[in-house]
C-alpha cells in the first residue's frame, strides 16, 4: 500500500517538474527564443532535475524500507557508472564472503549438525572411557548397560560399534565389504529416526543373543544394490556367513551416529557375536562400543558428567580387574575423540582464521577504493549537502551503496560456496572409509551469509561514508571539484589500510612459504624404507570364515606362490601399513632386566610382519637375523626391535637374546633393524616392535607386499590370480601402488601448502591493488603540483622519485610490520612444519623481496602517469 503511495507521489512530482519546465519554455518561446533553445534554457535554469526530485522526495520521507530501496536504486546507478571499480570490489567481496560461507557450511556439516536425519542432535553427548594412560577409548557393553540403567540425566543412551564386514546379497557369488554399525536396539528410538520403508528394530526385538538376525539398510545402499526395489523387505543378506533379514530402509541422508562415516546398514547389538565374532558382550575388556547419550530437556552436560563420574567410580571399585583407573569423559558430540570431526577440527579452525583474514583484506581493499573514489565524488556530495541533504542522509546513502556492493559480493559468494562445499573432501585423508557428511547450502548458511554480508558492508563502508559525508563544501564547490585533494585524515586512513593489507599479505605469504618448504622437505625425505615399485594388496579372510591360524596358513602359501611369479623380486606381508591412516597396534610389554620409570610411557607400537619383510621393504637389518621358516607356533616366540628400542632398553648391550613379555607370553629378540617413519614424516624416533606372522594368529587381515622392477600395477592381475587360485572366494579389499599411497600420507603438508599458497597470492594481489589504488589517486590529485614542479625544472626522474618514494614508504612499513607479525603468527604453524624453522630467514627474505617487487610495480604504473604530465596542460587548468 505504502509502496503504491510512494509511486503516486513520484508520478505527481514528475508531472510537477515537467509542467514547470513546459511553462518556463513557453515563456521563453513567447519572448521570441527559438523552440529548441527555449527548452534547453529552461532545463539549464531548472538545474539538476534528479537531484531536485530527490531533495523533494526527501521531504516526504517514507518508511525505512522505501528509503532503503530508493537509496539502493541510486547506489545501483552510481555503481553502473564505474564498472571497473564495481567489478574489483564485488569480486574481492565475493571471494571473502564466499570463503567464509564455504567454511561455515563445513563447520555446520562437521561440528554443528553432523548427524543428518537425527532429531535435536545438539542434545546428544559422547560418553568415552578414559584409559589409565589418559587415552580416550570405546567402552564395553556391560559398561554401557550400567551407564544407561544407573543414570538419570539422559532420556536415552545408545551404543554403537562401527564394523566393516563382507556382505553378499541373496543371489551374489562374491562378498563385498561395506561399513555399517552394530547398534543397541533402542538406537533408532533415541535418535528419533523413522523408517523410509518397512520398520526399524526396537527394544522389543531384543530376545537374546543371536536371536534376531535383522538388518536395516541405508537409503543409498538400497538404491545402489537393490535399485530401490520396495520388495526388498523380508529378503535376506549374508553377512560373515550369517543370514540377516532386511526389515527396513533408513530415511535418505541418515548415515548413522559416527560423524562423517557413512554406515550402509544397522544390525541389532544382540547379533554382535554373529556379525563380529571374537568380541564378548559380557566382558568389561576389551571395549568396542561408542556410547552416545541424549540429555533430558532439563539436564545439563555438567549434571550428566558428574553423574557418570559417580557411576564410573563405583564400577572401578566393583570390577577392579578390568575397570581399575578407567575413567569416563562426557562431551558434546563435536568434541568426541572419534569420528571425522576429531580430524577436521584443527583444519577447520585454521581455515576459519584464514578466510576471516581474506575477508578483512577484501574489506580493507574495498574501503580503500571507496575512499579513493570519494575524492572524485567530493563535488557531488557537496552539491547534495548544499541542497539540504543531512549528514545522516548522506551516510545512509553511501552506506546503501556499500550494502549494494556487499549484496552483489555476497550473492556471488553464496554461488561460490555452493560449488565449493564439496571441496572439503580435499582436506580428508583418502582412507578407505565412506565419507558421509551433510554438506550443502541450506537456510542456515544463507542466513549466516546474509548477516555476514550486511556486517561486511558496515565494516568496509562506514569509515569511508563518515569521511566522505563531511565534505569541505566551500572548497569543493568553489574549486569546481577539479583539484579537491584528499583531506589529511582521509589520506591517513587510506595509508593505514594499505599498510595493514601489506601486513596481512606478508603474514599469509610467510605462512605459505614455510608450508611449501615443509611439503618439499617432506616429499624429498625418505621414510626409511623404499616404497617404489611395491604393490600393496589389502586382504581380510574373516568374512570367508577363516580363523586366525587358517588365515596365517593361507597367507604363507600365497607369499610362497607369489615369489614364483615372473617379475616379482620379493614378497612379504604386514598387518599395518606404516605412514598410513588406518590402524596401528600397540602393546605394553614387560622388559626383562628393565624397570619402567613411574611416568614412563609403556606403550610400544608394533607391527606383525612376514618373512623377508625387511628385505622387501628395504629396511636394513643391523644385527641378528630376520624371521624365518623356523619360527613357528611351536618354537620359541621371537621378535625384532628397532634401533631406538634397542638403545632405550639395552644401551651399550647386544639386545639379541633379551626377552620381553607381551600378552602373557615371552618373546626373544632375534634381530635389530633400522628405524623408519611409522606414523608421520615429522615424528621423533620411537621404539617399535615387530612380531612374526607365523607366531601371531590373532587376526585374519594382512597387507600383501610385492616388489617388482617396473610398474607395480602391472602385477595386479597376477596377484589376484594367485589369491583366487588358493581360494576362489577370498576377499581382496584393495590393491594399490605403495608409493602412491605414501604420497597420499603427505597430504597434510600438501593441503596446507596448496591452500596457503593460494591464499598468500590472493592476499598479495589484493594488497597490490590497494597500493596501486592509493597511489594512482594521489597522482591524479597532485597533477597540478607535479606540473608546477616540472615547470620549475624538476625532471622526470624527480617525479618518479616523488611518487615511488611515497608508495615505497608504505610498502616498507607494511613489510617490516608484517615480518614482525609473521614471526609471532608462524609459531602457531609449528606443528605443520617439517624440516624448516618457523623463523626460516630464507622464507622471510623471499617474501620481503617479493612484496617489494610487487610494491614497486604498483608504484611504477601511477608514477609513469605522473611523469607523462605535461606541465603546460596541468597549469592551464589554474
Amino acid at each position: 500500500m505504502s509502496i503504491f503511495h510512494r509511486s503516486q507521489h513520484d508520478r505527481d512530482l514528475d508531472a510537477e517538474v515537467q509542467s514547470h519546465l513546459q511553462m518556463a519554455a513557453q515563456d521563453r518561446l513567447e519572448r521570441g527564443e527559438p523552440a529548441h533553445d527555449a527548452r534547453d534554457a529552461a532545463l539549464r535554469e531548472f538545474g539538476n532535475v534528479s537531484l531536485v526530485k530527490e531533495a523533494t522526495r526527501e521531504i516526504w520521507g517514507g518508511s525505512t524500507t522505501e528509503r532503503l530501496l530508493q537509496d539502493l536504486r541510486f547506489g545501483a546507478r552510481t555503481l553502473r557508472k564505474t564498472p571497473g571499480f564495481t567489478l574489483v570490489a564485488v569480486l574481492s567481496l565475493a571471494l571473502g564472503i564466499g570463503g567464509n560461507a564455504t567454511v561455515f557450511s563445513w563447520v555446520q556439516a562437521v561440528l554443528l549438525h553432523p548427524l543428518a536425519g537425527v532429531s535435536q542432535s545438539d542434545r546428544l553427548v559422547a560418553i568415552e572411557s578414559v584409559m589409565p594412560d589418559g587415552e580416550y577409548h570405546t567402552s564395553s557393553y556391560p559398561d554401557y548397560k550400567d551407564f544407561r540403567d544407573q543414570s538419570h540425566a539422559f532420556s536415552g543412551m545408545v551404543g554403537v560399534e562401527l564394523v566393516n564386514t563382507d556382505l553378499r546379497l541373496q543371489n551374489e557369488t562374491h562378498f563385498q565389504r561395506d561399513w555399517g554399525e552394530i547398534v543397541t536396539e533402542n538406537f533408532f528410538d533415541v535418535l528419533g529416526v523413522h523408517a523410509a520403508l518397512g520398520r526399524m528394530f526396537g527394544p522389543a526385538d531384543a530376545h537374546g543373543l543371536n536371536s534376531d538376525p535383522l538388518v536395516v539398510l541405508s537409503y543409498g545402499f538400497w538404491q545402489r544394490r537393490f535399485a530401490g526395489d520396495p520388495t526388498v523387505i523380508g529378503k535376506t543378506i549374508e553377512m560373515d556367513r550369517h543370514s540377516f533379514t532386511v526389515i527396513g530402509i533408513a530415511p535418505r541422508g541418515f548415515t548413522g551416529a559416527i560423524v562423517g562415516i557413512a554406515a550402509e546398514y544397522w544390525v541389532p547389538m544382540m547379533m554382535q557375536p554373529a556379525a563380529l565374532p571374537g568380541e564378548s558382550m559380557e566382558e568389561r575388556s576389551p571395549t568396542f562400543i561408542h556410547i552416545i547419550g541424549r540429555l533430558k530437556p532439563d539436564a545439563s552436560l555438567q549434571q550428566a558428567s558428574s553423574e557418570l563420574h559417580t557411576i564410573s567410580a563405583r564400577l572401578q571399585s566393583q570390577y577392579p580387574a578390568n575397570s581399575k583407573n578407567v575413567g569416563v569423559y562426557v562431551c558434546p558430540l563435536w568434541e568426541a575423540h572419534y569420528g571425522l570431526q576429531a580430524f577436521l577440527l584443527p583444519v577447520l579452525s585454521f581455515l576459519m582464521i584464514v578466510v576471516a583474514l581474506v575477508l578483512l583484506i577484501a574489506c580493507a581493499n574495498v574501503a580503500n577504493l571507496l575512499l579513493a573514489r570519494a575524492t572524485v565524488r567530493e563535488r557531488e556530495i557537496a552539491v547534495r549537502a548544499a541542497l539540504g541533504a543531512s549528514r545522516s542522509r548522506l551516510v545512509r546513502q553511501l552506506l546503501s551503496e556499500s550494502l549494494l556492493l556487499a549484496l552483489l559480493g555476497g550473492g556471488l559468494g553464496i554461488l561460490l560456496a555452493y560449488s565449493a562445499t564439496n571441496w572439503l573432501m580435499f582436506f580428508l585423508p583418502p582412507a578407505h572409509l565412506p565419507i558421509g557428511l551433510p554438506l550443502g547450502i541450506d537456510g542456515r548458511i544463507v542466513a549466516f551469509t546474509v548477516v555476514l554480508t550486511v556486517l561486511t558492508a558496515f565494516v568496509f563502508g562506514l569509515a569511508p561514508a563518515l569521511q566522505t559525508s563531511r565534505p569541505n563544501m566551500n572548497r569543493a564547490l568553489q574549486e569546481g571539484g577539479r583539484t579537491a585533494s584528499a583531506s589529511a585524515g582521509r589520506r591517513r586512513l587510506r595509508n593505514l589500510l594499505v599498510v595493514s593489507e601489506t601486513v596481512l599479505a606478508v603474514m599469509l605469504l610467510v605462512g605459505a612459504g614455510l608450508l611449501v618448504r615443509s611439503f618439499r622437505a617432506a616429499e624429498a625425505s625418505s621414510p626409511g624404507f623404499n616404497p617404489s615399485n611395491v604393490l600393496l594388496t589389502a586382504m581380510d579372510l574373516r568374512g570367508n570364515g577363516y580363523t586366525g591360524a587358517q588365515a596365517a596358513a593361507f597367507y604363507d602359501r600365497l607369499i610362497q606362490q607369489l615369489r614364483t611369479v615372473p617379475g616379482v623380486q620379493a614378497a612379504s606381508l604386514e598387518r599395518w601399513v606404516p605412514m598410513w591412516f588406518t590402524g596401528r597396534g600397540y602393546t605394553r610389554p614387560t622388559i626383562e632386566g628393565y624397570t619402567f620409570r613411574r611416568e614412563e610411557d609403556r606403550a610400544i607400537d608394533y607391527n606383525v610382519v612376514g618373512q623377508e619383510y625387511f628385505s622387501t621393504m628395504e629396511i636394513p637389518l643391523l644385527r641378528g637375523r630376520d624371521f624365518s621358516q623356523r619360527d613357528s607356533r611351536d618354537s620359541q616366540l621371537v621378535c625384532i626391535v628397532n634401533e631406538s628400542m634397542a638403545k632405550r632398553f639395552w644401551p651399550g648391550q647386544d639386545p639379541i637374546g633379551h626377552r620381553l613379555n607381551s600378552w602373557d607370553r615371552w618373546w626373544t629378540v632375534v634381530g635389530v633393524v633400522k628405524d623408519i617413519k611409522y606414523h608421520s614424516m615429522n615424528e621423533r624416533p620411537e621404539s617399535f616392535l615387530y612380531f612374526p606372522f607365523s607366531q601371531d594368529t590373532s587376526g585374519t587381515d594382512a597387507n600383501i607386499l610385492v616388489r617388482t622392477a617396473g610398474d607395480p600395477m602391472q602385477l595386479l592381475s597376477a596377484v589376484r590370480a594367485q589369491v583366487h587360485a588358493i581360494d576362489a572366494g577370498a576377499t581382496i579389499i584393495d590393491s594399490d601402488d605403495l608409493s602412491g599411497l605414501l604420497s597420499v600420507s603427505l597430504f597434510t603438508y600438501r593441503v596446507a601448502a596448496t591452500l596457503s599458497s593460494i591464499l598468500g597470492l590472493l592476499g598479495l594481489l589484493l594488497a597490490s591493488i590497494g597500493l596501486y589504488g592509493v597511489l594512482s589517486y594521489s597522482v591524479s590529485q597532485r597533477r597540478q603540483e607535479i606540473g608546477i614542479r616540472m615547470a620549475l625544472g624538476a625532471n622526470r626522474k624527480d617525479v618518479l622519485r616523488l611518487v615511488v618514494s611515497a608508495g615505497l614508504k608504505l610498502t616498507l612499513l607494511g613489510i617490516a610490520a608484517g615480518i614482525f607479525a609473521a614471526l609471532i603468527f608462524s609459531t602457531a604453524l609449528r606443528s605443520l612444519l617439517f624440516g624448516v624453522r618457523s623463523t626460516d630467514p630464507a622464507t622471510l627474505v623471499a617474501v620481503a623481496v617479493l612484496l617489494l617487487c610487487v610494491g614497486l610495480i604498483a608504484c611504477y604504473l601511477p608514477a609513469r602517469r605522473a611523469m607523462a604530465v605535461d606541465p603546460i596542460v596541468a597549469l592551464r587548468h589554474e
Partner: protein
Amino acid sequence: MKSQYQNRIELLQGTLDLLILQTLLWGPQHGYGISQVIRTQSGEVLQVDTGSLYPALHRLEKQKWIKSEWKLTEKNQEAKFYQLTAAGRKQLAEERSRWEQLSDAIGAVLKNPVIG
C-alpha cells in the same frame, strides 16, 4: 556572468518559506509561478533555486500550511497549484512578525555609528 552572481542574494533558511506563503496570499499559484513572482517582485535580486523551492513547497504542504490541486493555467497548461490554508495564514502572520522583529533589530545595529 560574474556580476549576475554578485547581485544574487542567497536566501536564509526559513526566509523562503515566508516568501512562498506571502506569494500565495494573492491567490493559488504553481511552483514556476511562485519563483517568477519572487524574482520579479524582488527586482530580479532573489533567485529561487528549484532545488530549494520544491522541497520547501512539499514541506509546507506536509505541515498543512498549504494545499495543492492540479488545475489548468490561463495558457491551458496542466499545473499543480498551491494555495494557503487557514493554518498557513496564521503561520504567515507569525513568520512575518518574527521577520519584522529580526529586520528591525538588525537595522538598529547597522544604524549605530561604529565606535573606534
